[in-house]
């Protein structure tokens, strides 16, 4: 540990115990939002203080930490969180999905299948899926308690009425373990199927709203839909321009100032791993994306 003025992983032991209790309760009631006493962290709320507190509470000295932001290991946000834990907990960090034991994420689930023993920690801005239509917290809590979820379908109905299909493509609501409806945080709905029956433990932390919820390993997670408008993943017209993957979530990137653009994997580790294994896409001749050195 190279910063002895901090407690391990920044938070004091009592706070971590409090958060762990909330996590245990969340695991015991999959999809249910457990309130916790969120602490101030040395970063602004928008930076995922909820996820950071969850990570701080579960991290052990032997853990290997990966942090991604929109699938990328090299955004300012991802780098600073990784540095933060490197400094306060002295844990090993990685960009490899396969090697990590704890992955903190904002807006994506890695493309490579997760395995047992891994923990995926989501940063959540707004944990309440019903808030869109019912702003009263007392009422939404009662709706969860009684399993009254008609309102969720009202939102999907509105989508279809307005756009002809369910246009919600982020934060697409799911029902966990056939009981609680949950907001999967602003991940694209492309990632929703990965939450179902996932071998890894999934934890969700909302700092500003002081809520923690969880999906234990191998839990049933169903995306809400209508019989005549079933949930559909998301289809990309072309494979990744760099690694040729046809099964990954793509970001559009601008390649030059003349309007040139291409579609590449948003999961940088996935893309690079594939390229290293010799997979090629249509633009592979073009210069590689810059890889930052976290």
């Amino acid at each position: 540990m190279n910063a002895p003025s901090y407690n391990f992983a920044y938070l004091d032991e009592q706070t971590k115990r409090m958060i762990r209790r909330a996590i245990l309760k969340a695991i015991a009631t999959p999809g249910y939002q457990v309130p916790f006493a969120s602490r101030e962290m040395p970063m602004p709320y928008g930076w995922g203080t909820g996820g950071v507190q969850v990570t701080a509470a579960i991290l052990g000295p032997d853990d290997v930490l990966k942090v991604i932001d929109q699938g990328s290991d090299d955004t300012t946000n991802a780098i600073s969180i990784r540095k933060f834990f490197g400094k306060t907990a002295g844990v090993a960090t990685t960009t490899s999905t396969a090697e990590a034991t704890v992955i903190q994420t904002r807006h994506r689930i890695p493309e490579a299948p997760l395995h047992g023993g891994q923990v995926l920690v989501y940063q959540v801005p707004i944990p309440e899926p019903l808030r869109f239509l019912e702003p009263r917290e007392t009422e939404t809590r009662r709706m969860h308690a009684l399993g009254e979820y008609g309102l969720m379908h009202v939102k999907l109905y509105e989508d279809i009425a307005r756009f002809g299909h369910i246009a919600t493509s982020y934060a697409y609501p799911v029902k966990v373990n056939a009981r609680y409806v949950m907001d999967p945080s602003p991940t694209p709905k492309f990632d929703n199927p990965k939450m179902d029956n996932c071998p890894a433990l999934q934890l969700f932390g909302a700092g500003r709203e002081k809520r923690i919820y969880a999906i234990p390993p191998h839990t049933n997670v169903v995306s809400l839909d209508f019989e005549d408008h079933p949930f559909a993943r998301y289809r990309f017209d072309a494979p990744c321009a760099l690694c040729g993957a046809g099964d990954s979530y793509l970001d559009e990137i601008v390649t030059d100032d003349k309007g040139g653009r291409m579609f590449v994997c948003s999961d940088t580790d996935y893309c690079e791993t594939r390229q290293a294994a010799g997979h090629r896409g249509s633009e592979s001749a073009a210069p590689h994306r810059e890889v930052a050195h976290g």
Partner: protein
Amino acid sequence: MVEPRSDGLEDPPLLVAEGLGKDYGRLTACKDVSFVLYPGEVLAVVGESGSGKSTLLQLLSAQLTPSAGRVSYRMRDGMLRDLAALGEAERRFLFRTDWGYVHQDPAQGLRMAVSAGANVGERLMAVGWNHYGRIRDTASSWLQRVEIDTARIDDAPRTYSGGMRQRLQIARNLVTEPRLVLMDEPTGGLDVSVQARLLDLMRNLVNELGLAAVVVTHDLAVARLLSHRVMVMKDGRVIETGLTDQVLDDPREPYTQLLVSSILPV
């Protein structure tokens, strides 16, 4: 004297209020109200502002806990149940399916930012309807029944006139074919011509669907047009009750006579 047969007279009561009362500290908003409502029967509760009408409606719908007495309701399985003894989930389910509640202010009974179709469809989705096309068709046929142009199905009630909002609220309530509808001043705040249209519509729907209803109103013309029976309230108590034409044409109590004499002929 031989009891007459048929005509639904042997139907058991749908709603039974026994000695209902509500105090707010030292103030008595409602006291010792008892009545029985049968399927298909419309009861008007009249009285002036502050007479306890809305309090009564809230007691009947279990939104308020009575200080005294109780309300029982015959569930679809035929059992008469004390509302206070129902679990919250059961009560709320009843509220969304077997009951309707029409607020004086449609903004309280509608989701103003959500399309008319979804406003009507919400109760269906709440009871598990999961087919968009069928939900939409049902919503659209209800819009027709309440005389709203189906071309407006995707517009939010924000963009509707007062009369349309009230009709939409009625459609939203009736879509699950409830057996009991509670209405608090359903025509309040509307122009006379708009009121007439709404009343006519409500009369027809109540007849067609065989709804039982409790209608709170201070407008005796509304009571006259919609109800079979009238209950007159004053200072939280029922002072007179009977068939609508009996009470309005032959009022007995001083207060009822005053009410009847202070309106234009209806």
